[in-house]
């Protein structure tokens, strides 16, 4: 019983607000985001499932979105987005910012 309560509590802690958030998928290949335009729903949390198909690490970085997340080469990671007002939010791969550019469109 105690274990069950503990596990339930741990799940509450470990599965924060983003559990039900819809996920958009983005792949990095040749230091470019595919797709480079990501459409998400406005005014609710969203998750971008980022798969890094390159050999090297990349940092998903955006001041507008207030996120920075490093994803190692041939690895994947979830970039969690706060609820966004409708609009365009540019992001970049900080380590290859000349090619790795994209935009999140909240609508």
């Amino acid at each position: 019983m105690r274990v069950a309560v503990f596990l339930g509590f741990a799940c509450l802690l470990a599965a924060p607000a983003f559990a039900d958030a819809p996920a958009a998928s983005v792949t990095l290949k040749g230091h470019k985001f595919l797709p480079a335009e990501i459409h998400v729903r406005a005014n609710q949390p969203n998750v971008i499932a980022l798969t890094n198909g390159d050999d090297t690490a990349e940092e998903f970085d955006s001041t507008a979105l207030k996120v920075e997340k490093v994803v190692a080469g041939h690895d994947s990671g979830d970039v969690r987005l706060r609820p966004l007002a409708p609009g365009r939010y540019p992001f970049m791969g900080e380590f290859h910012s000349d090619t790795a550019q994209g935009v999140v469109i909240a609508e």
Partner: protein
Amino acid sequence: MLPALVIVFREAIEAGLIVGIVLAATRGVPNRGLWVAYGVVAGVAGACAVAGFAGRLANLFHGTGQELFNASVLGLAVLMLAWHNIWMSSHGRALAADLKKVGAAVASGERTLTALAIVVGVAVLREGSEVVLFLYGIASQGGTTQSAMLVGGGLGLLGGGALSALMYLGLLAVPPGRLFAVTSALITLLAAGMASQATLFLQQAGYLNALLTPLWDTSWLLPQEGPGIAGILGRMMHTLVGYTDSPDGAQLIAYAATVLAIGVLMQIAGRTHSRSHRAVPHAA
């Protein structure tokens, strides 16, 4: 060459400004150079470790390991900066009043060197791990660009170091009697900025879900990052005083609460000290 220069320059400014403030705040304390050097070396070693385990770190705690790590590291730095300020306000008066009387205050100054070395280490760790990942990526790609990247990285490090040195020298130009007040204020704002950034990582991990709406947006006036002088200035202000061009409510509360908490605790520590001195006049 240019991307390496830009990235290393940017990260070097961020870590360098913090080292500069720490050096100015510990002016006159013996062995401070050694402690700061320990901090830098530990930070570089830690940065390599963090970069090496980036993938595994990220996947901890349901994929929020990286965010929680960043928030914890920033939280630790906030605590250390606060502790330094509070400790100095009760024991560092002699140091501030007359730099020639340093002998008496040496012991008290040295105590907080450990805390400040941790702050330096943490700053280098955070900014350095990005540089390590970036440079490692370039090294593994190989080819003719490698030496150009090294040159770019070296120039970036020099540039960032030079800017930080300028700020340090600027602080040294402050009259010794006021230096303590100035560095205390800077350290308080530095800590507040870090607290505000820590809330961002907690939000990103999904552990803080209230007050997420940006309150205002001054990016048209001073962007927090971006190309050109304005971008560099914005980034420096971001590192130094925690400037954010579109803060949300939680960030603002974290910032204000940190400033308030450190300010009040410094007042209390300072007052307790002077009272105990009046009671025991020979203690000094």
